[in-house]
């Protein structure tokens, strides 16, 4: 199928979108043809969500255009997109649990009888017809949605989209919460939709799925278009490379540091359902990279180590001493620092000043009898601003007004004030500009040189490979592989991330 053969159902050209402090999309283009599944690929923060929200009318682009059947459209609101035939199925399903399947499908556009009453019989009949059209025989129109499994609910969402005569269906990680059997059934439905000429935009992190279901793939990284491929002409290795970038050599100036005694030793950590029997060790001066796909349990492991979701079983030793870490306070007392993944929600108090954010995790050390030594606090924050190169008008500026990179430096800085022995960094450079990225990497090396043990979680494979002394790979809540620096190649680590029936091997 060549691009010229058919007019794409949906085409976007040169989309640009910025949020305060973040450039979410720059010059992204892609298109979907009738009867095609076009996958969107990219790590978290690559801009996929922003892209689909623009296409479904939630956001308005700063620049660029959206064409439906070759005609330029403006979606001022989600209804406009829906009227144009674009339906979106979000990860969080927007269903009403008290209502039946039929009621959910036809919510807001129920068939009317004379006098404006809802024609219940016609509604049930239409719902049953829709169910039949997709060969769904284990779902009845009069079932209450609250009693259904996630897979069934998703089918109801799809039916709702179809009831609006959607011709373009956007599915955001539809398999993220599905069981194996449900995935199979979803694919059956997707194929049936393809036969009908529906165009599908399919977002997923699971490369193996894409090889099963997608026709083409567009890869985004850091809000920019990286490339598009026909699935038949590509392989997993290439896609991973496109996703995580190639700039390994010059960006990651790993400086070797002397590696000392083990700082953290964990044995058999269990926290159901996300952490299953994990044992690991991080030594002083060592940077350990923790790789894995989204949902593999990396951040969850970090939160177990930090005491936010304490381990149900297992043992943690710090400097050889067995400790019980059942709260972040205990973790901090033990010398652990954690720079979380979600800067806005977990790391930073946006409504507080830079000064107060800097001191938040170090208040104990800055105060006597509970009274904060405000001069010392200010000295600490100002020193931090200088040391980390935070660009701000003053330490009294609200932290939420700074750019992402500067915010990240503050979150990092507030923990370093405690002089931690173990620093856990969760996606330390996500969504920040290249300059800030390099500064954070330089800082990591500096800290390692000072003897801090660092556990770094990253979705960016080159970062993991470039910065780590050792690389651990997680999948489905377990550590599945370990590589030392010499043996950690993108192929090997990528393969371990993908897991058993290695699509990379198969594709190669």
């Amino acid at each position, binding site marked *: 199928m060549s691009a010229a053969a058919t007019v794409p159902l949906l085409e976007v050209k040169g989309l640009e979108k910025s949020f305060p402090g973040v450039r979410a999309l720059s010059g992204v283009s892609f298109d979907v043809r009738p009867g095609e599944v076009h996958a969107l690929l990219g790590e978290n923060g690559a801009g996929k969500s922003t892209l689909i929200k623009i296409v479904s*009318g939630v956001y308005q682009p700063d620049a660029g255009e959206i064409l439906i059947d070759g005609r330029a459209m403006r979606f001022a609101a989600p209804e406009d997109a829906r009227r144009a035939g674009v339906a979106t199925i979000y990860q969080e399903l927007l269903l009403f649990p008290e209502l039946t399947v039929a009621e959910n499908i036809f919510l*807001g556009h129920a068939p009317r009888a004379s006098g404006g009453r*809802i024609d219940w019989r016609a509604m049930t009949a239409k719902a049953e017809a829709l169910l039949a059209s997709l060969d769904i025989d284990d779902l009845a129109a009069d079932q209450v949605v609250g009693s259904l499994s996630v897979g069934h609910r998703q089918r109801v969402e799809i039916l709702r989209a179809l009831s609006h005569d959607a011709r373009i269906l956007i599915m955001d990680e539809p398999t993220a919460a599905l069981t194996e059997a449900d995935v199979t*059934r979803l694919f*059956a439905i997707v194929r049936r939709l393809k036969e009908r000429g529906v165009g599908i935009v399919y977002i997923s992190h699971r490369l193996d799925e894409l090889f099963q279901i997608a026709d083409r793939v567009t890869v985004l990284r850091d809000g920019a278009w990286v490339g598009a491929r026909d699935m038949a002409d590509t392989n997993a290795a290439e896609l991973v490379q496109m996703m995580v970038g190639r700039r390994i050599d010059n960006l990651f100036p790993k400086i070797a540091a002397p590696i000392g005694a083990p700082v953290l030793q964990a044995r058999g950590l269990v926290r159901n359902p996300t952490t299953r029997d994990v044992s690991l060790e991080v030594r002083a001066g060592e940077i350990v990279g923790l790789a894995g796909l989204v949902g593999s349990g990396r951040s969850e492991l970090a939160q177990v180590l930090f005491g936010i979701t304490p381990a149900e079983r297992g043992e943690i030793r710090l400097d050889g001493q067995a400790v019980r870490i059942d709260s972040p306070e205990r973790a901090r007392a033990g010398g652990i620092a954690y720079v979380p993944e979600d800067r806005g929600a977990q790391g930073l108090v946006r409504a507080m000043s830079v000064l107060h954010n800097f001191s938040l995790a170090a208040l104990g050390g800055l105060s006597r009898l509970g009274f904060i030594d405000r001069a010392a606090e200010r000295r600490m924050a100002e020193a931090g601003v200088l040391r980390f190169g935070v660009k701000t008008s003053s330490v009294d500026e609200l932290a939420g007004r700074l750019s992402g990179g500067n915010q990240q430096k503050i979150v990092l800085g507030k923990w370093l004030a405690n002089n931690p022995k173990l620093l856990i960094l969760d996606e330390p450079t996500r969504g920040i500009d290249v300059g800030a990225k390099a500064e954070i990497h330089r800082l990591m090396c500096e800290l390692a040189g000072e003897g801090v043990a660092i556990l770094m979680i990253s979705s960016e494979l080159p970062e993991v490979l470039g910065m780590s002394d050792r690389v651990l790979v997680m999948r489905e809540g377990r550590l599945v592989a370990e590589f030392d620096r010499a043996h950690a190649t993108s192929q090997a680590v990528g393969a371990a991330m993908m897991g058993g029936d290695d699509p990379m091997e198969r594709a190669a």
Partner: protein
Amino acid sequence: MSAIPVPRLALPRAGIFRRFASQEALLALAVIGLAIAVGFVNPRFLAYRNLADILLGNAYIAIAAIGMSMVIISGNIDISVGALIGVLATVSGSLAVAGAPTLVAWIVPVVLGVLVMAAQGAVVAYLRIPAIVVTLGMMSILKGGLISVTGGKWITDLPQGFHLADLNLLGVPMPVAIMVVATALAALWMRYSASGRAIYATGGNAEAARLCGVNPQRTVVMVFALHGFFAGIATLVYATQLRVIQSTTPPGLELTVITAAVVGGVSILGGVGTVVGATLAAILIAEITSALVFVNISPYWTDSLRGGLILATVIADIVRRRRRASRGRRI
């Protein structure tokens, strides 16, 4: 691709019980269970007359709780409703005594209720003042204003035709009929209309609201206006039941109404809850009050017992919801 054989799963059907297998079911169960338990101690409790009187005398609370539950679902709260009902009752009674046509005396409070509440909603939505502040201030204004204007003079000599609550609709006393119809209409509207959905969306989170194409500001104004409408209807029942109108604000009514909405399963966290639950809860609270008299509990302890029961219901609901949530999460 070949069709994939799909395993058939046994799935529950949408029976009437299934549909209400939630806070409403619990409340309905509690209403019935309590009646039976008290009936054992004193069979007179189960007399039709008594059960009917409980409904009759408290229908206005249930009706006001409908609007309140909408307000709470939308993520707001209203403290002024008790004072408003007092004001509207006085307006309505004064009109009737002044010789206005009965219909006017009935309609004016409803219209006025909508206007006052919509204005509050607009301040909340567009001027972004928290609802608790706006309605707290409005409570003061209405309460003080009412006494300033009337001097607290009771309204007596109401014309016979004014007493809407004395009428019957197809053999059902009007207050109960209005309560049932209002609850049913509100419940259906909340479920089936786009604007009803918008309330949940606004209270749930702004993101979901935008995804549903909802304008949160307009929704908040609408919710307050509706709340005013139901407060107006509640006023009609409240004001026309007795031969006199007190011209003061009913003490503590706002708290009773809020409690009914909250016990009814309306989560302040937004996004959950139905008006049916609020009505049932209003009935339950009224039933408890009456039951405590029937079983000879020392009246000194009735308030603490009522408070304890409300607390138990609320905690049970939260625990239940959390369990359901954790069960729903995929492992």
